[in-house]
């Protein structure tokens, strides 16, 4: 009897984390098998806001598919816009004016800062600190105001067009951006004093949720998760697109592999984004923001094309298969958090519930992008 009893350990119980749970940031369900406070197995269950974006790509013209991009990752929508328009420009051979490229980079990097700020707040909220979230929101609102003045939207931007941008930026946007960067520079020490150096936060994050570089490779994790594992990989550096080669910036890499490393990577990235924006504003030329000869109806050559950009959460890849029509034959969206989350099951084994949620927060999940 004893051996049989031992084999089936009844002390374990199942716990449903989600679909609605304060820590899952949206509608993600994690099926936890727990042994007391320890996690034996954590299986993420996806699909609660699956919208079949890939099928929409096959039913819409290339231009009509544009607004879908802002709905994937609503926190860094412009990166996704950028990836898609660059892919179509590559397919259709459209040249983009230089001013448009600069505007794209400036707005995308602003969007990346806002995304990281929101992540920062939400992450600390996951760890139980509420106030930093609202401080981060304060700064983020400034970015949203700036971007709203340019794009007309606050969250789900649809600003870039094949061959350029929807419209030109005004000078007060550029000066406003510089003023904002000055403001954020002065706020960063506050964030570090309040949160980064806080001993409780350090205890919560240091050594928690280790993800080795090899694990990242096996699961295809990218972005800050990969860079927090000591791999110097950033699409902006490794396969430069747009005007990134002309801009001098560093890729923050931390070798600790823990949640703190991922936290530090993102906080340092905010600094680097500010550097990029400053340089881009200094260098931005005058000129048109829209290519002159953009075909009314885009019909790329048949074949398949792949393009990757660095979104706020990792490398966002699009594989488009064209059959020469004005619609895509197949549109594959490779979202970074899908891969990042797929390692959660393995990485969270044997962790405490609180630590596992810290790990989940450090992956920076945006569920609509995972479910697509």
């Amino acid at each position, binding site marked *: *009897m*004893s051996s049989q*009893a*031992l084999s*089936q350990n*009844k*002390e374990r119980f199942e716990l449903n984390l989600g679909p609605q749970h304060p820590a899952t940031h949206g509608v993600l369900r994690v099926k936890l098998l727990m042994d007391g406070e320890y996690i034996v197995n954590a299986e993420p269950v996806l699909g609660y806001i699956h919208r079949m974006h890939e099928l929409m790509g096959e039913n819409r013209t290339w231009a009509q598919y544009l607004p879908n991009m802002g709905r994937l990752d609503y926190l860094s929508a412009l990166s996704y816009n950028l990836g898609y328009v660059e892919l179509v420009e590559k397919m259709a051979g459209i040249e983009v004016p230089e001013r448009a490229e600069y505007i794209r980079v400036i707005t995308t990097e602003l969007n990346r800062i806002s995304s990281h700020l929101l992540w920062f707040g939400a992450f600390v909220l996951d760890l139980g600190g509420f106030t930093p979230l609202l401080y981060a929101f304060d700064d983020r609102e400034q970015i949203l105001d700036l971007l709203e003045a340019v794009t007309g939207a606050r969250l789900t931007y649809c600003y870039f067009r094949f061959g350029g941008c929807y419209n030109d930026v005004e000078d007060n946007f550029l000066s406003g951006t510089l003023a904002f960067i000055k403001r954020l520079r002065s706020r960063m020490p506050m964030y570090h004093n309040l949160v980064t150096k806080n001993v409780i936060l350090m205890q919560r994050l240091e050594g928690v949720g280790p993800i080795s570089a090899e694990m990242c490779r096996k699961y295809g994790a990218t972005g800050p998760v990969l860079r927090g594992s000591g791999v110097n990989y950033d699409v902006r550096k490794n396969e430069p697109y747009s005007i990134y080669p002309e801009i001098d910036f560093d890729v923050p890499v931390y070798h600790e592999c823990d949640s703190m490393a991922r936290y530090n990577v993102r906080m340092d990235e905010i600094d680097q984004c500010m550097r990029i924006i400053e340089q881009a504003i200094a260098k931005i030329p005058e000129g048109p923001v829209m290519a002159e000869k953009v075909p009314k109806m885009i019909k790329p050559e048949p074949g398949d094309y792949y393009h990757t950009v660095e979104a706020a959460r990792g490398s966002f890849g699009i594989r488009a298969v064209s059959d020469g029509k004005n619609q895509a034959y197949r549109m594959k969206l490779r979202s970074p958090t899908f891969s990042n989350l797929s390692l959660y099951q393995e990485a969270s084994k044997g962790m405490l519930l609180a630590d596992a949620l810290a790990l989940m927060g450090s992956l920076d999940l945006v569920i609509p992008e995972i479910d697509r």
Partner: protein
Amino acid sequence: MLTLSTQLNTYLFIGAMLFGFGVFGLVRRPSLIGMLIAAELVLCGASVNFMAFNNFLAEDPTVGQIITLFIMAIAAAEAAIAMSIVIAVYRNYKSIETEDLVDLQG
């Protein structure tokens, strides 16, 4: 006029009743925890007796109190050990019912 609260016999009777309840529970309960609860009742019955004698009959009224405190300490120790035994038994047998523990010998 009723003067129950000033009579030794009242307290002794309460103590005896608690003790009896404890014995009753010890025999009746099929599970370890139930028996543990009953055992606490037995200890309480004894304590009440001590306190009663202490108040009415003892020359030195600190003795009964001290003994009661000791009983409490023993009860706490007993509860801790009983809990660990219950957990250990449950881990091994998936049950804390005394009937299921027949192969405890080996």
